[in-house]
């Protein structure tokens, strides 16, 4: 019998710990499929963050490092400099990348490290129980912004893709969302192009993926997808911010 669909070899065969309706599962699958389809899975070395995806090292079917909070781009730098012929990626959340790890991501991009970063932005700290993230929207209630994020005292949410797109060494920067089947297909396309940039040794690449957190947003999974579309996409516009000249 002809096989018309099977699970990607890029994921291990274990149940994940993610909450029902969380979009990490979709993003894991997209990353794993891209690794397999581009033929780099067996040469891949991934770096997991601290946050909800802390145990990603159990889920990707390739060599993995578990990094300290925010330091994944520095860890990936060390790996890539020792193993320039291997494919090296980081998988990080918004607390990890946009708060405690801002120096590491900015300078990895600045050096043009030949690594790829998957940046999952769900506008909240999930693992620690729903605290305010640098990406939390103005007015959004979290356990550390119980009256809603106040722009005057807590600042505006940080747009990492726009920030990183100003950096010369960042060869590929794109923001996508995984709220609809169409957007999921676009997200996969972006991840694949980003990975190809590393394979072609053109520099640093990042895909920011707008994601949901039904548990800590206090919404059902379908409501969370709607919330993402209505609130996050207007503030975090989707699209490509940077790609190598010749593929434009």
């Amino acid at each position: 019998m002809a096989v018309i669909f099977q699970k990607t070899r890029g994921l291990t065969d274990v149940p994940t710990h993610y909450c029902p309706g969380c979009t990490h599962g979709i993003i894991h699958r997209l990353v794993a499929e891209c690794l397999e389809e581009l033929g780099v899975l067996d040469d891949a070395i991934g770096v997991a963050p601290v946050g909800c995806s802390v145990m990603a090292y159990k889920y990707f079917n390739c060599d993995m490092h578990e990094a300290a909070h925010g330091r994944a781009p520095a860890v990936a730098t060390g790996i890539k400099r020792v193993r320039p012929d291997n494919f090296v990626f980081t998988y990080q959340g918004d607390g990890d990348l946009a708060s405690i790890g801002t120096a590491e991501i900015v300078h990895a991009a600045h050096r043009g490290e030949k690594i790829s970063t998957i940046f999952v932005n769900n506008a909240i700290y999930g693992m620690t129980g729903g605290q305010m993230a640098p990406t939390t929207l103005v007015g959004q209630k979290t356990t550390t912004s119980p009256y809603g994020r106040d722009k005057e005292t807590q600042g505006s949410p940080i747009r990492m893709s726009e920030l990183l797109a100003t950096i010369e060494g960042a060869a590929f920067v794109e923001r996508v969302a995984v709220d609809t089947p169409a957007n999921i297909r676009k997200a996969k396309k972006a991840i694949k192009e980003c990975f190809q940039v590393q394979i072609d040794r053109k520099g640093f690449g990042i895909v920011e993926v707008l994601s949901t957190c039904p548990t800590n947003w206090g919404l059902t999974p379908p409501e969370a997808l709607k919330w993402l579309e209505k609130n996050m996409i207007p503030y975090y516009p989707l699209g490509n911010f940077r790609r190598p000249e010749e593929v434009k």
Partner: protein
Amino acid sequence: MSKVLMKGNEAVGAAAIAAGCRYFFGYPITPQSEVPEYLSRELPKVGGVFVQAESEVAAINMVYGAAGAGGRVLTSSSSPGIALKQEGISYLAGAELPCVIVDMMRGGPGLGSIQPSQTDYFLATRGGGNGDYRLLVLAPSDVQELVDLIMLGFDLADEYRNPVMILGDGMIGQMMEPVEFKEDLKREAPEKPWATTGTKGARKPNIINSLYLEAELLEEHNHHLQAKYEKMRQKEVRVETYNIEDADLVFAAYGTTARIVKTAIAKLEEEGHKVGLIRPITLFPYPYDAFKNINPNCKGVLTVEMNAGQMLDDVKIAVEGKIPTHFYGRTGGMVPGPAEIADKAREILGGGR
């Protein structure tokens, strides 16, 4: 091989390259900046990689990545920078990754000074970061020993899968002395089947990690680490002793300070005093047993350090209250002279001039 005149910090770089180290990640800080300067010049010549990181925090995490991927890797800094590296050092120890970390200590606390000091003894020998862990800590007292211990350090790091710290000070880093590279320049690092190299589809994924969410498993991991540290205590103690069996006073000192103490000893001996020295070369594991050979009737052990009394705690543990302990220290980057050390010794010995 003939002797060459080298500054301590440059000798660190040369010894690392001779030991097969090809990766350096660091950040500038006085008084060790000649280490990154030398390696930025020399590593590319041997196909190595030099990266000036954005911070000490990033540098040590690059070491974590490089060591996990199987590289023979070095980082260096000085006290405030070493404090910043503690997060990564704890992770390296937890994930059992080999690397060499050089600390050319300067005065503290805080930003302190840029002059020589030994204020990081506690930090180096007690772990420094979070969790129960130990580093192998080697304390050279001249540039030749610095070279020898760097080379030994890489081998010990690989053998034990553990970070090794070379605890020097601003004096050793900055002074020039003739050195000889005794080891074969073509040394190869051992096989590292645990390293992340890509599975090639031929084995299960290798995972570099210090996270154990189940308490039972983390305790088991801690037992494994402690057994490893016990093995270090049994096998890796290095110490120089001089005349401790019939001395009336025994000095305890390491690094630069031990060298100054030797000058004080020569002076005291000229005057007819019987004095000895215990110079720990490994600060962890500490040479506690050496103190058992001290003349039981001696007037005391005089610990001399460039701090307010840190190794003194280990000396007290070693003598188990059986011999009086004394301390002489200078802080803030002040280096004790032989005359003031000899004065302190005469005070204890009595009948001095």
